[in-house]
Each structure stands twice: as C-alpha cells, then as structure tokens.
C-alpha cells in the first residue's frame, strides 16, 4: 500500500526572499522552485513573502502552523525576518552566500538570467533544502 499523501498543513513551507536586484536572490528563488516543483513537490508549499510582509492573516497562520524553511539571498535576511515577524520560528535557514562560499567557482552575474553557474548553485542549494525537508517530514509525529 502506498503512503498517504501529506495534507496541505503537513507540507513544509519553502520561503525564499523576494530578492529582485541581486543575483543571489534569483538563485535562492530558483532553488526554492526546484524543491517545490521537482525535488519534493508533494511535501512542500510556499506563500508569497510580500503577503507575510503585509501581515496577511492566512499567510501568517500558515507559517505559524507549518514548518518553514527560509532561503535568503543577502544579509538583510528578509525571508527569515518576515517569518519571525509573523510570530514563527523557521525550522531551518539557508543562505545562498554559504553555497557560494563553498563553491566560489560558481560566479553569478545577472539577475534575470543566472546562467549555468547560477543554476548549478541553485541545484546544490535545492538538494540541501530537500534533505532538510526529509528530515523535518521524518520527524513529524
């Protein structure tokens, strides 16, 4: 018998920053979408970060009730800060810069097209996030 699919409330929320003017923001978002659409589509979900910023009740409730993973592209850590501001504590925090630090050969220059290096960096980050999702899902009672 196959395992039952998780309900929406069981899903881990992957929340990337909305980084629009920096390449690492684009990499973080690409990584989030890789997890959401390819690596763990049945175990994850997301909310618009801008809705959290505006205090949208439904979004705030979701981040308080579900496990969240923040992915930030710059030191301002908008994803983490906005999750915390909604009254939740991220279950994990990932920073694109940490991936870059470990893979300095992967230089990304353009925001709208992160290129091969950016996609590779996003893939590495996405796989780390997916492992964390499994860990969190495995720990779910």
């Amino acid at each position, binding site marked *: 018998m196959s395992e039952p699919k998780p309900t929406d409330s069981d899903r881990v929320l992957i929340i*990337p920053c*909305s980084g*629009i*003017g920096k390449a690492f923001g684009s990499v973080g978002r690409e990584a989030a979408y890789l997890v959401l659409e390819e690596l763990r589509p049945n175990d994850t979900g997301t909310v*618009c970060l801008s809705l959290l910023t505006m205090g*949208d009740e439904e979004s705030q409730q979701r981040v308080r009730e579900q496990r969240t993973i923040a992915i930030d592209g*710059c030191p301002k850590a908008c994803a983490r800060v906005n999750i915390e501001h909604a009254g939740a504590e991220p279950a994990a925090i990932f920073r694109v810069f940490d991936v870059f630090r470990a893979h300095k050969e992967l230089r990304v220059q*353009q925001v709208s097209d992160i290129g091969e290096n950016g996609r590779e960096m996003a893939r590495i980050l996405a796989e780390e996030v997916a492992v964390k999702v499994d860990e969190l899902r495995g720990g779910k009672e």
Partner: protein
Amino acid sequence: MPDLPEKRVGLIACSGEDLPVGTVSRMAVLQVLERLRPQDTVTLCLPLFLAGEERERAFARFYPTIAIDGCSKRCAARATEHYSARPAASLVIDDFIAEKGLPEPHGLRQLDAAGQAVTQAVAQELAHEVDRLLGKKRPTVVEVEAQAPDAEGEPEGMVVATCSCGSGIPVAQLQVNGRRVEILALPAILDQFREMGKPVNDATAGELMDAVKLYNHLPNEEEAGLREAVLSEYTRYIAAFDPASATS
C-alpha cells in the same frame, strides 16, 4: 566626487512567489531595469521594507515609485504606502490582463508563452509610465530601435538591475525648533559640498537649502529653522575633517 543619489523612478514588484502573476511582476520589472530604462529606474525588494532600516523605508520618499502587483491584494502598493510613501503610480497585473484581453499566464519558475507575452506588455507599460513620471519624451521609432538587441546605442557590456538595498537613501536627523526632523540625502549633500570646497557661510547655506529641497518637501514655516540647522550640521561636518576651515 561622491554622487548624490539621482532622481529615478523606483519600481516595487510584489514578486509573489506563489502566483504566476507574481513571477510576471518580477520579470517585467527586471526587463525595465535591465533593458528598457536602465538609467532611469531602481528597485527595492518589497519585504525589505519590514526587514530593513530607515534608509530602506525612505525609499519611496526619495524616488517616485510605481507599485507592480500581481493580484488584487496589492501588497506592493500597500507596503510602499504603509512603510514609505504613497506610490506615484500602480499597476495590478490581473486587472491589466483583463483590460487588455491578454492570455492568462501559467508557471512559477518558468512562465509559459502567455506569461512571457504578458510580461512584455507590462514592461512596455511600465517604461511609458517611467517616462511620464520623469517627464521624458521618447520617439517611438527611436525607442523601438534602442530596445533591439543589436541596435546601435545599446549600452556596452552587461546592464544589471539597480538594487537599492543596503545602499539606500542616506538620511539625517536634525533638531529644528526643538523637533527631530528627518532630511533625506543630507549626508550625501554635505559630502558633496565639502568635496567642492564650499565654505561655511550664508551663501553656502542658501545653496545647501536648494539641494535639500530637491529631495525633501519642506513646509515654509520650517525653512528658516531648517536653514540654521543644516548650516550648523555642515559646520560640524567640516570641522570633523578640518577644524581650522570651519572656524575661518
């Protein structure tokens, strides 16, 4: 010489990660920032209004802004108004699609053909709005040529989107008539005047006020007090570099 921040149009996209129209908002803004109006536009991540500092929140008080929202929740317009200042213009992509009879976009990570068509149309609309806000007229033919990838006059090298986070608008707080007043761009103005070797005197006070007024709305009744406070600030600023010149 340090540059004063230029007057550009700030583009604030909702960037909604959970909706195709959010992706459209982000991609359209990037197209304007990188290709259509790179010299005239700047952006800021919307969640930075909350996560950032005063200089980020001063964004819309310095730049006339266009809020670009995917859906009727209008996060970009509301956030800009709530945390900074009322946007000069706003566009809701769902409404734009309905109004222009455009196809519905699909895809979050990668937009489908409909999404890309909507992105193009939104980007063009934004570029025209930027021109309107800056009072710039662009002949259609020239505009089309300038946007062609191989056209003469295309900026050399890679054009990158201009992001304002972390390098936002410098703000100073002054005491004016016993009240704390926030002055946008004052640190950069003082820096520029010092670089130009402007002496501390009444004529410079007038020039400082002219520069300050470019970036700040000042009630008439506060102008005299502010002039005095700005000149005092400039005196302190100069003294920090060269005590002799400040007292000469």
